[in-house]
C-alpha cells in the first residue's frame, strides 16, 4: 500500500474508487459479521412479502464499504476520524456498488493535517444511494 500524504491532496480531487458487487453469500456473511439477521437481506420470499422487489443490500454494509474505501486510502499513517452516510436508495445483490470520495477541504490544526471528504456509494445508474461525509488525518512530508 502506498502512503498518501497531506501535500498530495487537492480540494476537489477524487480518491481511488472501490468497486463492490455483493453476492447473496456476502449478505449472509454480513449478517454474521454485524449480527443483523433481518430476513429482507437473505430470504427472497420474505423480502417480497414486505413489498420489496427482492433481496436488498444492508445499508450498514454500504456504510462499512465507505469505511474500507477510506481505510485503504489513508494508508498506514492516516487516521480515520469520522465517517458515515445516509441511506437514500436501495442497492441489490449482483449489481455494482461504486464507493467514491472527493476531497472537500484540507487544513492543519494543532500539528495534525485534516482532510474533509464527501463520500458516497453509487448504483449502476449513477445515483448516490448512500451519500455521506468523512474526516481523516494524513501524514505530512514536512
Amino acid at each position, binding site marked *: 500500500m502506498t502512503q498518501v500524504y497531506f501535500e498530495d491532496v487537492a480540494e476537489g480531487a477524487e480518491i481511488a474508487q472501490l468497486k463492490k458487487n455483493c453476492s447473496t453469500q456476502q449478505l449472509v*456473511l454480513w449478517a454474521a459479521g454485524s*449480527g*443483523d439477521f433481518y430476513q429482507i437481506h437473505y430470504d427472497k420470499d420474505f423480502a417480497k412479502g414486505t413489498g420489496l422487489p427482492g433481496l436488498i443490500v444492508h445499508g450498514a454494509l454500504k456504510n462499512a464499504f465507505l469505511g*474500507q474505501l477510506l481505510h485503504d486510502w489513508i494508508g498506514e499513517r492516516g487516521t480515520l476520524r469520522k465517517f*458515515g452516510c445516509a441511506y437514500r436508495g436501495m442497492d441489490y445483490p449482483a449489481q455494482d456498488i461504486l464507493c467514491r470520495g472527493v476531497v472537500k477541504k484540507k487544513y492543519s490544526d494543532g500539528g495534525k493535517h485534516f482532510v474533509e471528504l464527501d463520500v458516497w456509494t453509487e448504483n449502476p445508474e449513477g445515483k448516490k444511494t448512500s451519500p455521506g461525509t468523512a474526516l481523516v488525518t494524513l501524514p505530512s512530508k514536512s
Partner: protein
Amino acid sequence: MTTAESVISDEMRAAIGVEHAAGVMEIENTNCRMFARSVGHTDAIFYDEAAAKARGYRGIVAPPGFLGTPIFKPGSGAGAPGETGGRGFAVPYKRILNGGTDYEYFPDAPDGDVICAGDTITARTKIAGFEEASGSLGPMLITRRETTYTNQHGKVVAKMYGTLIQY
C-alpha cells in the same frame, strides 16, 4: 399547504438527553475477523494479531464501523444499541427507516484510543433530538440518537450518530 400537527409530545421532549441503560460490547479476534471478512477488507491488521502488533496496535484492530458485539441474553431481544432503538413512544407513524449512521473515532492518546480485540466497550445511548419534516413520504418524525462508546480504561473511543425516520 397545511401544517401538520406536531407529534412530538412532552414525554418525548423529556426523554432528550436521558441515557439509556448501558450496554456492554465485546471486541474479540473472531468477531473482528468476521466483520472484516464480510466487508471484504484486505488489510492484515483486521485479521492477524502479529501484523497488527507490528504496526503498533495492542491487538487485532476493529474495522471501521465495528463497535463490538452486544452480549446476547436469550429472550432479551438485545440488539446493537443506537441503530434503531427508541421506538418506545406512541408515534402515529407505522413505518420506520434507518436514515443513516455516522461514526466518530478518537484515536489520539492519552484521552482516546484505537479499538482493538480484547477491549470491552460500554455503550450509552441517548436521544439527541427530534425533528419533523415533510417529504415525498409525507410527514415524518426524525429521531437523532447518539451513542458513546467507552473502553475498559475509561477512554471514549467512538461515538455513533444515528438517524431514525418514522412516517
